[in-house]
């Protein structure tokens, strides 16, 4: 059986004004269907670049992103992205933002009524059904991010890519949204890849944590499996020795072996 998603010897370099800088070197990873994977690393380690490569928003310099043995080199709705700053279109209502995606992806497949139900269903899934006629400017940051997740889920993606989805939120909103995402993952059993720089978030949510070395020429330093059963509850985990051990392993990787060597 072919791997669900395979990153095969990926190199990525950018050339700007004649200067070539290598961001990623020789990244290899196999991701299984239904898995929740986090990618963690210091700023500038190329984790967002890696996510963009999987999304197809940027192209690999060498190697390949393979999805069920077929190369991925353009974006598409089967790899939906939840952007860091929600990226909702401010001139559309919450409903219309999701509708834009649903109409595009399911135009030939679902009838108008089915599409409407599907939009409402996805908004309800992220508990945003009540605000469907509001515009993004009228709702809070956490709500916007929920709508962003609803829009991505509404594309019925094979893989959901989350680019620091909770980075811009306050701690309490973030915790609530993390619970929502865990709940959605448990229900839909879809594959999720999340970029984060929050160690607790990575351990709480992930089946495996991919730890990146520092750039330039970053690569995967270590992959840590998180052996915690689901459903996971935040409070129960605080004193769970496996949780503490996983957390310590990530912290040691980030702050002992791959400490960021710069003033900032």
């Amino acid at each position, binding site marked *: 059986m072919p791997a669900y998603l395979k990153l095969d010897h990926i190199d990525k370099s950018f050339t700007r004004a004649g200067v070539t800088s290598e961001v990623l070197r020789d990244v290899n990873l196999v991701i299984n269907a239904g898995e929740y994977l986090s990618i963690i690393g210091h700023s500038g380690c190329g984790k967002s670049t890696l996510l963009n490569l999987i999304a197809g928003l940027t192209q690999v310099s060498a190697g390949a992103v393979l999805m069920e043995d077929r190369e991925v080199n353009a974006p598409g709705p089967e790899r939906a992205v939840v952007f860091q700053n929600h*990226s909702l279109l401010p*001139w559309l209502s919450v409903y219309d933002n999701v509708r834009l995606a649903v109409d595009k992806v399911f135009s030939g497949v679902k009838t108008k009524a089915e599409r409407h139900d599907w939009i409402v269903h996805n908004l309800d899934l992220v508990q945003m059904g009540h605000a469907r006629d509001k515009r993004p400017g009228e709702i809070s940051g956490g709500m916007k991010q929920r709508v962003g997740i609803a829009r991505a889920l509404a594309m019925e993606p094979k893989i959901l890519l989350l680019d620091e989805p909770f980075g811009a939120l306050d701690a309490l909103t973030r915790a609530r949204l993390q619970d929502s995402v865990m709940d959605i993952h448990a229900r839909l059993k879809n594959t999720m890849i999340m970029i984060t720089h929050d160690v607790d978030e990575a351990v709480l949510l992930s089946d495996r944590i991919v730890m990146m070395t520092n750039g330039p020429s970053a690569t995967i330093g270590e992959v840590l499996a998180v052996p915690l059963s689901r459903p996971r509850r935040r409070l129960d985990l605080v004193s769970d020795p496996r949780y503490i051990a996983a957390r310590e392993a990530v912290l040691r990787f980030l702050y002992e072996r791959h400490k960021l060597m710069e003033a900032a």
Partner: protein
Amino acid sequence: MAAPALKIAAASAADPAKTPAAPVVALPQRKAVPAAGRLAKKASTIAAAVLPPLVVVVALMLIWQLAANRPGATLPAPSVIWAESKDLILEPFFVAGPQDIGLGWRVLTSLQRVAIGFGLAAVAGVLVGAIIGQSVWAMRGLDPVFQVLRTVPPLAWLPISLAAFRDANPSAIFVIFITSVWPILINTAVGIRNIPADYQNVAKVLRLNAIEYFFKIMVPSAAPYIFTGLRIGIGLSWLAIVAAEMLTGGVGIGFFIWDAWNSSKLSDIIVALLYIGIVGFALDRLVAAVGSVVTRGTLAS
């Protein structure tokens, strides 16, 4: 303004308060006060907007009247204008002959030309601006050319357009077009270049095609810029039409001024200036109002 209205409301609510059941009177009172208060508030806002310009206009008229009443004054005083040209002011839409029509008709004729020229400029400006905004090479190639062309004064285009079209009306429309197209085009291009990368990524993930991208992302996202351009463009159109009509003739408001000058009707000219100013102001407000409706929510993130 607000104080007396509040007193009236309180007085009308005081009558039922004489009955012993105190909690019953509370409701009508609470309803009456905000309604009257709102009305008073509205009246005071309108007064605040209308009174200052009114005072200024009256003061200016007085100064003008005094200045033009001195012996040797070359321009007519407001009282003289009223005496000589009040038919033009009071009856904008009279028709007394082929060349003797009210200023309202003349303004409408000019507006028709502006509508055609400006409409063409809006369509062409947004389309070409969209192309330039998207393509770095089109921008590099065309931007310097446009920057030079846009500084050419409207009337400088007139001889060339007369030579090309051999008719006054299309020439006037062309002058409108060529004057107003640049700000629309350049603002659209800037607006398109400033579309956030996030929106472009959303479009890519959804695989929007070029037409969907144009209507669903590009135009709404660039709308505030486009409307800035349209607003500058309509102002320039109105500037250009008056000048162009002075030279091309016909029935427009511009030619009316030229005609009045040739027959030494200074009062008529001043009335025509007022018409032009008010219509120009209305046009600007119209485009601004359409813009604020269309771009509602676009700037909020």
